[in-house]
């Protein structure tokens, strides 16, 4: 009988790592607290940089779960150390005794309403990147009248000490450019702005997407962080920012504003960290042994990480880290036990 490994978190990292572990001869026990596997990816319509549909990545993964025991709507109740093993009790009453646990708890989307000055949850025409993906995916048209001016606000809850999130969320810049192009396709006559602090187009083909957004879609990029959003008596928005490259304050009337909510550490991180006695950083993400040398290994024996649980990551980074984590676990389990 093959050895069990518990994988906590059924997003892309958890699914991919489980598949890799299975291929290496283990039996992964994959635990997901929501009703569906796939994490944030399951909600997303299309992926940067090329605009392929998210389901073309996720569906084949979810269709390939033979040999993996997975439980949705299931949470971890407790984890206890017993000699050189971990005893994991689940909310469904099951428990598993394993030598290795992989934490693939991912991230929470930053709660955009915490940036009170942007009025999410107060002004109807202020939505988030995730709301926009819902809309793209469902095809349901917006309930607003003429949508002529649209804005994207980068760094909502990212690089923001006041919001308690100092880190760059990494994916929002390119997501905003992707979504700006997509919305321009839906409203070809609309003027679309992106308000950014720095455009972080670091990945292959990201810069191409940016170029296309400028050349083919006429997206207007304004280097300045949005300071305030307000509403007129027809429900339209006023957006204030500085165009820092011209050194002038701007006030633009808009019909729709999309907030690029960033990646916040998963709310459960602290609780799980306490259960297995590991550290989270001051940013709330798990601390691996070394961000460079051993990003998948924790300070405790038998506890491993993959994906955005240790900080914002793109999907390809998450998937390759899931593969690395599976190898790290395999090596750990094959190393003769001490004593």
């Amino acid at each position, binding site marked *: 009988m093959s050895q069990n490994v518990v994988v906590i978190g059924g997003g892309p990292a958890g699914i991919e790592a489980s598949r890799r572990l299975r291929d290496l001869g283990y039996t992964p026990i994959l635990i997901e607290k929501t009703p569906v596997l796939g994490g944030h990816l399951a909600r997303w319509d299309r992926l940067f940089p090329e605009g392929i549909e998210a389901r073309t990545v996720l569906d084949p993964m979810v269709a390939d779960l033979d040999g993996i025991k997975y439980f949705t709507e299931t949470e971890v109740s407790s984890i206890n150390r017993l000699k050189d093993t971990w005893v994991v009790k689940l909310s469904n009453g099951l428990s598993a005794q394993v030598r290795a646990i992989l934490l693939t708890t991912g991230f929470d989307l930053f709660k955009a*309403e915490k940036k009170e000055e942007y009025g999410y949850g*107060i002004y109807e025409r202020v939505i988030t990147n995730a709301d926009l993906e819902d809309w793209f995916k469902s095809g349901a048209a917006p309930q607003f009248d003429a949508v002529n001016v649209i804005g994207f606000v980068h760094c909502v809850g990212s690089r923001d000490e006041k919001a308690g999130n100092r880190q760059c969320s990494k994916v929002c810049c390119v997501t905003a450019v992707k979504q700006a192009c997509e919305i321009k396709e839906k409203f070809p006559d609309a003027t679309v702005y992106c308000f950014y602090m720095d455009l972080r187009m670091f990945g292959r083909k990201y810069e191409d997407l940016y170029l296309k957004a400028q050349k083919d879609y006429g997206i207007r990029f304004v280097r300045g962080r949005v300071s305030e959003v307000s*509403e007129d*008596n027809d429900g339209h928005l006023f957006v204030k920012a500085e165009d820092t490259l011209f050194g002038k304050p701007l006030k633009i009337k808009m019909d729709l504003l999309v907030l690029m909510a960033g990646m916040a550490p998963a709310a459960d991180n602290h609780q799980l960290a306490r259960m297995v006695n590991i550290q989270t950083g001051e940013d709330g993400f798990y601390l691996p042994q070394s961000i460079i040398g051993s990003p998948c290994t924790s300070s405790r024996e038998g506890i491993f990480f993959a994906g955005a649980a240790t900080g914002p990551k793109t999907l390809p980074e998450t998937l390759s880290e899931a593969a690395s984590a599976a190898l790290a676990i395999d090596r750990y389990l094959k190393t003769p036990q001490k004593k």
Partner: protein
Amino acid sequence: MIYQGKQRIWSEYQKEIPTDHWFYVRSCIRQSFFPASEKTFLEILRDRLGKDVYETPHHTTCGGIAYHSEAIPQETVMTIIARQFALMTEAGYENYVCSCITSFGLYSEVIEDWREFPELLAKIRENLWKATRREFKIPTYLAHASDLIYKFRNQIAEQAKFRLVNKATGEPLRVVEHIGCHYSKMFPSKGVGGAEYPYVLAGMVESWGGEVIDYPERRHCCGFGFRQYLVKANRGYSVSNTHKKFESMEPFKPDMIITNCPGCPYFLDRWQYVIAEQTGKTYGENGYGIPVFTYEEVAGLVLGYNPWDLGLQTHQVAVEPLLDKMGIPYKPEDKYKGPRGELLQRPDFPMNIKCC
């Protein structure tokens, strides 16, 4: 606008306000331009609600306006504030309430600085001792006078003779609330409702029957700007900021404006007059302006005070259209009378803004 979204934010900024025993300090601007407002505040607290609010004749300015005009250094203003706290300590109080938003913001800032830099607090204690031989404790609770009216808003509503409702139509009055920058922009948690959607005035308006208007430039400064008003050469700054606010609120057709800070009602009232005289533009109905009130004046009207006891005759923008809407009776012939009922020669009529 999604009202529940604001309620959620309001629930996150619930400031603790003790119910009784306050050491009270006045505002330079409020007592100069709205002296009856301070009188009304004390009457409501002491006589109607039976609260202990103590005032010593020895308290002075906090120095805030001088400090924000760079007329005195930071160490001076901190030591003046330390002296105010010493008077509170000597009088046996721990709860400190001030009648001015500039003061309130400055007290909040100074207390925070002292907490962060203990060596600075030590220096100020030494300064105060050298200059006055006084010692002080930092207040346990700091409130702006409007925090107390907010706290007791429902008791005021229970005693109300009039409501912020248009008597003819039964509709709630449309009220612009203006909070004053130094109330919570520096320290959102020190103000009722926070910095972005402050609730201190909105709570009063709702409790007394009115409807709050949220207009695009709601959060913008009234334009005081300290030196930008105090020096004549700079006043274009002041009036242009007020102008921006009125242009923004105009489409919402407000019936009235309620203010928190003592300076804002002066500027929002007087600059309407200046804009009308210079450009002919008025923002109220039928050539009137939009009447501007302190929160004490509004509380007084709700409680049935005589408008002329509240000092509404010293506003440049006529208040009568609002009194009529609320169904408040008043005697026009008493408006410009002196303390013994003697008739004082009435003010001139401005050219462009209608007055009564």
